[in-house]
């Protein structure tokens, strides 16, 4: 069984990178995800259904297409990429930040959907009640709305994290497959399968991938259950 744990430095790098990319993809998209979910759940504005379609687009178009669009927009000379690189010093192209961006975009529909559903489900009359007690909109959101949708937020975060761990198509299209920089678990496995004698390593990383995903799902179930009980006041 010793072969199972005999990770090469390259493999360890891929694991660490994968976790880092998934973590930042999840965390970075969270505030935007909450804001968009709020807009979709409560906003009344022209183009709401268009926004809804755009948010869900990564779920239905081929990941390669998403990756290519990201390349056009966020590439070195892309419309947005140039702005980020020159003004903020953040480069996405062929960097791990780009991988995180690709994963964030791919997981975004799942994140938004989960938060939106719990926003739709909460009793808005509780917010009215908080208003009559003197709380302003911001305070109501922080003390009432946010705690009540916490289970939905946690579920959305886990879905986003899991999606990021498994992301392949958009990542490899946008930031390629550079070991140590953009090579995540799925792309590493794909590479290993291509080369002769890489089967064993591929199997190792596959098991790691399964283990991380299962761990994340178990942890999320426990967290969500705790949060739900708390929200229901049990």
């Amino acid at each position, binding site marked *: 069984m010793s072969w199972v744990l005999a990770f090469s430095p390259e493999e360890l790098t891929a694991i660490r990178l994968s976790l880092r990319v998934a973590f930042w993809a999840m965390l970075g998209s969270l505030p935007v995800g909450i804001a968009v979910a709020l807009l979709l759940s409560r906003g009344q504005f022209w183009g709401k259904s268009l926004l809804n379609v755009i948010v869900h687009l990564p779920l239905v178009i081929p990941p390669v297409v998403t990756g290519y669009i990201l390349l056009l927009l966020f590439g070195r000379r892309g419309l947005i990429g140039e702005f980020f690189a020159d003004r903020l010093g953040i480069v996405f192209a062929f960097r791990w930040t780009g991988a995180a961006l690709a994963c964030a975009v791919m997981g975004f529909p799942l994140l938004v959907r989960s938060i939106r559903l719990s926003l739709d489900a909460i*009793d808005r*009359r*509780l917010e*009215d*009640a*908080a*208003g*009559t*007690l*003197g*709380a*302003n909109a911001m*305070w109501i959101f922080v*003390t*009432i709305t946010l*705690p*009540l949708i916490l289970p939905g937020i946690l579920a959305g975060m886990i879905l986003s994290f899991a999606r990021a761990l498994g992301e392949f198509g958009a990542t490899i299209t946008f930031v390629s497959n550079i070991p140590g920089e953009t090579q995540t678990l799925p792309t590493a496995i794909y590479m290993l399968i291509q080369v002769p004698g890489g089967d064993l390593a591929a199997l190792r990383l596959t098991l790691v991938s399964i283990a991380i995903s299962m761990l994340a799902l178990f942890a999320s179930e426990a967290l969500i259950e705790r949060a739900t009980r*708390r*929200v*229901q*006041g*049990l």
Partner: protein
Amino acid sequence: MLSVAVQHRLGDFLLDAAFESGAGLTALFGRSGSGKTSLVNAIAGLIRPERGRILVDGAVLTDTARRVFVPARQRKIGYVFQEGRLFPHLTVRQNLLYGRWFASRRGQAGEVEHVIDLLGIAELLARRPANLSGGEKQRVAIGRALLAQPRLLVMDEPLASLDEARKTEILPYIERLRDEFAIPIVYVSHAIAEVTRLATTMVVMSEGRVAAVGPTAEIMSRIGLFPLTGQAEAGAILSTRVAEHDTRFGLTTLRTAAGDLRVPYMDLRLGAQLRVRIRARDVMIALQPPQGLSALNILPGTVAEIGETDGPSVDMRLDCAGQPLIARLTRRSVESLGLVPGRRVYAVIKSIAFDHQAFGGAAPGTPGADADTRHG
């Protein structure tokens, strides 16, 4: 001092209501769908009326003519909702203190303890709303609204979702609230027993309009309003004082302006004040002082008003030394006794007719009974 004039359209329903009321408890009474809740929502700032003007203690909260609309959170109006609306993720203590973070005035030291004590919720503080009974939830909801330092307390059918036992449990707390705090209360209800027991002023609503406003006893003795105030439970309200206990027969004598009433024993101290509702259907009329009759209560008076009707029964208002009393007789009896306004008569009421529903103020065996000396 509360002054309300509101016009608001909700689909086919037009709310067009105006009333003024002072200290104490003002009941908005009417059937479901008569616009009571919409009216209090306008007062609390939860709906913005198309036209209207709302003042509390001289402060303009809504004035559509001058484009004034103070948002709900700045109105300082405590709102007790029908379903409580406690925050499920917070403990009872956190719920109670929620509004205090925003109250401009810190309030007196010990006020929190006083409210907790008054509502009897000290044991519940660490619990969450899901673990409370319906009655406990409403008491916490009342405390939460009170502790936000309101200048007006609005209660929208706070007992409607509770069973009879829970209602009897909470009513004394609301009475103490009315009597111990200098906060005017607007109380929405369609239950006449609650209203007659609690209300200082009564606003009768019907189809989005105010049908009548006035002191509760006066409104309840208006024969013309019975279709709105409820035929079956119609009756006059008398202010009484406990005058005597008869331990041998288990009776208590209540003194009223109209004369003495003997009722089943009540565990109240002498001098305690009490409101009594005498249902019209429990009152008989005699032309002579009755002899050899089992009924213990005989009040002399004159016929003041006889209701118009084609049906079998007639409501009439008697004047018993200035105190109105309502009697319901058959039309046949009215004719055969030759009852006309001005005629001297004797009203006969069985002591047994006084069940717990008939008593406002302190009912025996309920919390707060000993403190209840300020009614009427």
